[in-house]
């Protein structure tokens, strides 16, 4: 042990840091106020929640309701899978245009990235409203909303994945005189494939979660049953819908996790 004094455990913040923390706290309080945060409501909500549960329980498990909701859930999954798969496929060329230093110049990269940001900035439920207007009520509008939402998500992350790959194999192929598109196809895309698979599976999980609520705006799926259940105070049926959504979403997440390990794990 030396005779040096032990260093202090915490550093005294500078005046600017202190002002920053104080400003952050003020902003948080302002946001809570804007959000109508009320301790009184928090304290009085458990009895109301218990009241809802008492009226919703037991869930409606009659055969005709389960059959009707089951088919709606199948439609929900169809919307999610079709939308996610088409979205992932369409994301690949978009990501090639968005990835810096691959096949197009920085101006095109920037324009495509801004377009992807705009797509992501609009929530999926808003896209569903837009497509309900464009193609009418029903699952097709929901599927289109999922496609667009998936392109916004996967286009950005596929591009980032490709930019982050090891440049070595690409350089070696460039050194053979290969064209840019050949280098991307043979070196960049295969190297980014595990990340693509992971992102695509997450997009599928996200699509399943989204598709369960698109029905609220008439874009198909089981969401409409949830809305009708609450509108008619048919809480047992509404609870059945909530439980079905939870089971399906958790099931898809488990399947996706398993697929991720099987596909990516073997490729490492």
């Amino acid at each position, binding site marked *: 042990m030396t005779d040096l004094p032990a260093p202090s455990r915490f550093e005294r913040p500078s005046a600017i840091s202190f002002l920053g923390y104080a400003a952050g706290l003020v902003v948080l309080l302002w946001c809570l106020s804007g959000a109508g945060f009320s301790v009184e409501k928090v304290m009085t909500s458990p009895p109301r929640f218990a009241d809802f549960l008492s009226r919703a329980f037991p869930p409606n498990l009659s055969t005709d309701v389960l059959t009707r909701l089951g088919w709606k859930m199948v439609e929900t999954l169809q919307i999610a899978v079709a939308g996610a798969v088409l979205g992932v496929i369409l994301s690949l060329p978009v990501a090639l245009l968005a990835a810096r230093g691959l096949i197009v110049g920085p101006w095109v990269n920037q324009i495509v990235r801004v377009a992807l940001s705009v797509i992501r900035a609009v929530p999926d439920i808003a896209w569903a409203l837009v497509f309900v207007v464009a193609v009418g009520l029903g699952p097709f509008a929901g599927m289109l909303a999922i496609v667009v939402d998936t392109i916004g998500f996967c286009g950005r992350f596929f591009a980032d994945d490709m930019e982050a790959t090891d440049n*070595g194999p690409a350089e070696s192929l*460039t050194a*053979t005189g*290969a064209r840019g*598109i050949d280098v991307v196809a043979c070196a960049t895309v295969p*190297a980014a494939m595990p990340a693509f698979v992971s992102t695509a599976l997450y997009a599928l999980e996200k699509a399943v979660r989204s598709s369960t609520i698109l029905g609220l705006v008439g874009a198909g799926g089981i969401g409409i049953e949830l809305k009708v259940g609450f509108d008619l105070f048919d809480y047992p049926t509404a609870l059945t819908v909530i439980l079905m959504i939870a089971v399906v979403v958790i099931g898809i997440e488990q399947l996706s996790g398993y697929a991720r390990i099987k596909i990516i794990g073997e490729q490492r």
Partner: protein
Amino acid sequence: MPGIRSSTRSSVSDLVISHRAEAIVRPDRTGAHGVPVPVVDIEAERIAKRFGDTSIFADLSFRLERGKATALVGANGAGKSTLLRCLMGLIPVSEGRVRLLQEDATGARAAKLRALRSRVGLVSQKHNLVPRLSVLSNVVHGLLGHRGGPRHWTHSLAPAASRTAALQALDKVALGHLALRRADRLSGGQSQRVAIARAIVSRPEVIFADEPCASLDPQAGEDVMALFFDLARQDGVTVVFTSHNIDHALRYGDRVLGLAEGRMKLDATGDSLRSADLRGLYD
């Protein structure tokens, strides 16, 4: 692959790489008095490279003859790898002029640079194979400079002539039996041999090798260097390689160029040097 192993140079792979046939029979130029004048494959004229304000090297001039092996030696950061990339046109020089295979590579348009690169090969320290693809697909990729497009993206789609050329190259590095193994399931030595097969499959006139055995254990490194130079000398290929191994530089380099502090501090034939002569470059 016994049938392929016994085939001559002008058979299958010349279907794939037609220009190489001309290159092989092209004689050295003859001077005014009938004395052969060596053909210069690589010429650097007062070249310099800077990244921002940082100078990597400056005022380098040399001419490298066809069929000779040149070792570039120098300490870490001396600029050997950057020089190699400048000579291939992978990165532009900041000043000066590079001629590669009698063509001006400085400021060349992309198409011309690609055409030039299709006549050279590169072997890197990290092997740089595409890990998830098969060994055979990786070697087929070596032909992309001559035959681009989806049919050469994977061995499954490749034309028969390209597959045969790739298998022939794999046979030369004694890895024909691992053609369908995934590249990320090879040992370091095997990976580097596949990288060599990829570099020679297009029958290049010049091969650049950037510390080809730096990531290998000593025995694998010796094996790879011996194999690499056997193949290069068999085909009369011009080789430029960087190495930290003084013994390799002297043994395999017909000529040794030493870089230090961004300048050429040594230019001598391998035969005329001893290990001690190179140590100063690392001080």
